């Protein structure tokens, strides 16, 4: 029963999101905004796994997103690069769906690397390692022109094609198709996070976050736990990056921009870190806020309002929107407690 109650809000949200395009009458501009917001929200969900549940802030999270985007794009475009020592790497284009899988794997592998590091560095130092990692990856994407085209951007990235051998294929060209693809991937990621944080593994993460020495002393393996969290988180970010590349059909090293990570952090913390709903609610609000502001005011003013909205939300609900609202809902029955307290004695 209580399980059902818990499942209700996300299910309602999913239903609403699934029905939204019908309501919008497929306005392409709004659909476009929703798709991009959705992709970034998946990024935010992945960041939440690290920030919200292990307490480690990755300010270089965009690295995984960008790596996913590049791996996926290069897999589906093919490349031919000189590796030095007379070696060449030549790759013929593969279907975009394979690119998606490789993006998830490659980003996850990078997450493993960073996760191993996080065994040694925590807190601010972890933040710096992640920032540095993202900057290094960005500079490689920028400077390894032969592979990535550097700042000249990878263009003509094909759309994702779904299909099974023998059953024919289906290319996702329209916005509506892409919207549902993003929604599907997002739902899957939600599921993965929900499963992970709900059980033993989630308790291990919480333990490490609240009191690391004590967590170690009850047998929690910090390296393993943080690494698994980092791998899953990075893989999800890589999936989002792949969706981004195939939806936008062009990527350049700008995908590694620091501001995008900051945007994801805003989605997570303002929405409510360490909650499942938080990044989704935060993602929708801060993804769509610029769309709402665009027609009503000057460009500079839009940014100012964006910043002010952020500040106001945190003043009203310092722990984020979702915990804030949950607190409001819960507070009402709590007031009734003294009355209830008196009654149990009566029957006896």
């Amino acid at each position, binding site marked *: 029963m209580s399980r059902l109650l818990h499942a209700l809000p996300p299910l309602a949200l999913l239903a609403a999101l699934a029905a939204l395009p019908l309501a919008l009458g497929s306005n392409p501009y709004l659909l476009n905004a929703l798709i991009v917001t959705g992709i970034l929200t998946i990024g935010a969900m992945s960041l939440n796994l690290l920030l919200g549940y292990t307490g480690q802030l990755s300010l270089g999270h965009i690295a995984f997103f960008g790596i996913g985007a590049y791996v996926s794009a290069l897999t589906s475009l093919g490349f031919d690069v000189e590796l030095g020592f007379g070696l060449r790497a030549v790759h013929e284009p593969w279907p975009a769906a394979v690119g998606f899988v490789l993006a998830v794997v490659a980003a996850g592998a990078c997450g493993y690397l960073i996760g191993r590091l996080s065994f040694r560095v*925590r807190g601010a*130092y972890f*933040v*710096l*390692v992640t920032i540095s990692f993202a900057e290094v990856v960005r500079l490689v994407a920028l400077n390894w022109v032969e592979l990535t085209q550097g700042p000249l951007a990878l263009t003509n990235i094909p759309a994702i094609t779904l299909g099974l051998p023998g059953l024919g294929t289906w290319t996702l060209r329209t916005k509506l198709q892409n919207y549902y693809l993003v929604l599907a991937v997002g739902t899957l990621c939600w599921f993965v996070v929900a499963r992970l944080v709900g059980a033993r593994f989630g308790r291990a993460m919480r333990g490490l976050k609240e009191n690391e020495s004590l967590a170690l002393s009850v047998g929690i393996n910090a390296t393993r736990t943080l690494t698994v969290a980092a791998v899953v988180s990075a893989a999800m970010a890589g999936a989002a990056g792949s969706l981004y590349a195939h939806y936008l059909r062009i990527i350049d090293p700008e995908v590694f921009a620091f501001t995008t990570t900051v945007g994801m952090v805003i989605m997570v*913390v303002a929405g409510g870190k360490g909650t499942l709903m938080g990044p989704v609610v935060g993602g929708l609000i801060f993804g769509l806020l610029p769309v709402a502001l665009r027609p009503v005011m000057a460009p500079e*003013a839009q940014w100012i309002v964006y*910043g002010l909205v952020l*500040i106001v939300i945190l003043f009203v609900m310092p*722990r984020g929107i979702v915990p804030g609202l949950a607190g409001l809902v819960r507070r009402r029955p709590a007031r009734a407690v003294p009355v209830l307290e008196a009654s149990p004695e009566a029957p006896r």
Partner: protein
Amino acid sequence: MDQLIQHLVNTLILGGTYALLGIGLTLIFGIMNVVNFTHGALYTVGAYLTYLAVAALGLDLFLALPVAILGGLLLGALIEIVLLRPLRGQDIDTTMLVMIGAGIVLQSGTLWIFGGVAKAVPSPFPEAPLQIGPASVSWLRLFVLGAALLLIGLTYALINRTKLGLAMRATFQDADTAALMGVNVRVIYTATFAMGSALAAAAGALLGPVYVVHPQMGGPAELKAFAIVILGGLGNVTGAAIGGFILALAEELGAGYISSGYRDAMGFLIIIAVLLYRPTGLFAKAERVG
């Protein structure tokens, strides 16, 4: 050889610049434990204030500096009282986000007021550089180096040698207990943030004439400042200064002898390497469990 000497001289000069960026953040991030995303914006504000003082009020650069520093101090105090004080005791990520919001507002505000076209602040120093053997250095940048070292020294002394510094450190380690010792905790909070902000503005004011002044100038500066402060060990003023010089050296030699495209990457690779070797920064303090 001549090129190496020039690189080393550049390192000294650039290191001074970086150290200057770092020390303001050391106070706020390293000691107060507020992830200060307004640092870049305050740096920008400092630069614009000098520009205004010199271009609009016709002040001399040396007179404009105190104006900018005072401006930074007041703005910092305002931010602390309005934005941070009500959120005292909240999660560090919450205050970080509020600082991100404030940073966005400040930066867009400067763009709105001053427009996107860069401004130049004239320098009172001779254009012809000082020649040191095969290397040359601009006078202005020597002045900046000197000012940076002075500010580092003053900040160090303030934190480690004065009663105010003692109270600051105590407050951010345990505010309740510091209050029990008689510290006016609220004043310390505001003063520390204001001082850190004044130092950020000072950096902008000093570097405005060296570079050009524009609304975006804070972004890269902020990222570097964070790197420098963490590299040096949180809350450690000398560490931050040394971190600045190390970063400068890595960048100079990286650009000079490896590849200018990877100039910034060199700095970040050094940071990763250092943190692998010393997971809590170069000059971290001892900790214990149990």
